[in-house]
């Protein structure tokens, strides 16, 4: 049984109840990375990094989770274009040097259809027991 106490702590919104994310161990997802290895830093939410100055429920929950893109909703060229574009706009971006394709293992966490701009964009809520080993990494590519 997954628990999400870390997602619930420190805020007055229950992102799990409010947005009803679902476990997804079937689909392939992508996430931008700092290097050609997944580090804990790549998987820290803004909230975990101390950036908490947000107000609306949606904003808070987006920042409690991690942005991932579901590959079946978008082709890989568009994903690469998106990550490269982030570097063009935010040249000091922490990530977006590499990206990985992966699947979630059981009990890793839950995925929310947060629908930011594209349907492919999802927000992943890590379960309390999540570690980077909960990702089945299929490929890591240079951007």
């Amino acid at each position, binding site marked *: 049984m997954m628990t999400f106490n870390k997602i619930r702590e420190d805020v007055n919104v229950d992102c799990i109840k409010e947005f009803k994310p679902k476990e997804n161990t079937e689909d392939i997802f992508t996430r*931008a990375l700092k290097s050609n290895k997944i580090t804990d830093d790549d998987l820290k*939410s*803004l909230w975990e*990094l*101390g*950036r*908490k*100055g*947000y*107000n609306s429920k949606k904003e808070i929950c*987006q*920042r409690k989770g*991690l*942005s991932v893109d579901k590959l079946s909703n978008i082709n890989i060229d568009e994903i690469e274009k*998106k*990550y490269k*574009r*982030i570097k*063009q*706009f*935010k*040249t*000091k*971006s922490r*990530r*977006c040097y590499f990206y990985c394709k992966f699947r979630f293992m059981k009990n890793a966490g839950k995925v929310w259809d947060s*629908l*930011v*701009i*594209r*349907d492919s*964009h999802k927000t992943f809520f890590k379960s309390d027991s999540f570690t980077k080993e909960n990702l089945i990494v299929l490929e890591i590519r240079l951007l």
Partner: protein
Amino acid sequence: MFHIDKNKIIVSSLPIIVDGYNDLLFDDEPILYTGFNKDGNIIIGSSVDEDYEKKIERHFHSQVSKEIYFNFLKQEISYRRLLEEVQSFFVIDSSFDGKTTTIYLVNIKDIPEDYLPTYEAYCPEEVYKPAYEYGLILTGKKANEHIADITEATNLQDNFAKLARLKIKNFPFSTIAYLLPSNKAASFDFNFKIEIKEGEQLDILFDEKEFMSFFYQYLDFCSNYLLKEKEVFIGDEGDFPKFNSLRKVFLDLYKKLNISIEDEIENILKEEIKKSASTLESMTENIGKNFTTIQFSNKVDGRINTICIFDEKYRDIIEETNVTIEKYSPEYYSDKEVNSYRIQIYNLNTETRKGSAYVESGDYRLKVKFSILGDEPIEESKYTQSLDKGKVIDIKGKAKKVKEEIKRLEIEFEKE
């Protein structure tokens, strides 16, 4: 994090987004976003950097004109160029807890090169999602006083209804527009809701949302990209990425409806676009008289997207585009001599001397576009009388025809 002189600090709410917030690029955080400040001006913002020791996140905000904003949205200018051109460029530092904010009014030269966006930083392309609500906002001249000329307002509503009434060959349905209540904040606005009007048999495989996404892409093409890719209508070889993308979506819709007319598909789409382009010409022909721009937008997932800003330049270009396309038609014919015609004017822009009229052609009355040659004032003339009193008048001029049907009239000015 780079240093900014304290003398650049200002106390102002000018760069702060208070309404219409919209993400354009997002990954964990908003990378690029837009919205309106308290005065209703457009603000574009982007994430720049964070200082984890001082617990500060830094953003660029700039106040931009509608024209620059629109050029940016349509990838005409990069973000870097936009920042070089804007008059009001701000750096905003916010504490990680969101409790304090420092605003600097800066010049682009104050920003170290490695913190600026690159010249390749173009706005992400529009994602076409199902859109059911569309709007037209008039600005400038009388519109800024929240009033509109009744004839012009009627012309706009009628033409939008026509633009939205998409009835495609072999499709078992069409679209229809309903008028929605006005938004109080706008100068003068019209809001519409689009619905599917079902025909006799609507296939169970039909996906309404997919069609409404196509409809959005279609209107975006007609409003914007037709002007750039008009050569696709005049048989030129070339790269027409937006037309090809629209064509592909259109073809997929046909396939899903089990209609196999792949050979005709391009012509069907082109004919629809030509009709819509003609409607857009009618819709914009009053620009310059009592208002200067029409902001054409829609609402997707609660966000307002600007599809196009119609202004005087647009009005002239859409007319030129339609004339070019008509001339290419193999059945195009232009009167060599001046002939007599009987017309009744129903729309006339006295500034541009252009408008729309019914012309008698045998037993029929056709709707045509016209222009009045010369530079004599046309106020108090038989042309304005025809408009004001609904009078049929005799005019002399040359007609431009496609398939024997009059499309345009070049009228020789006559005092009486």
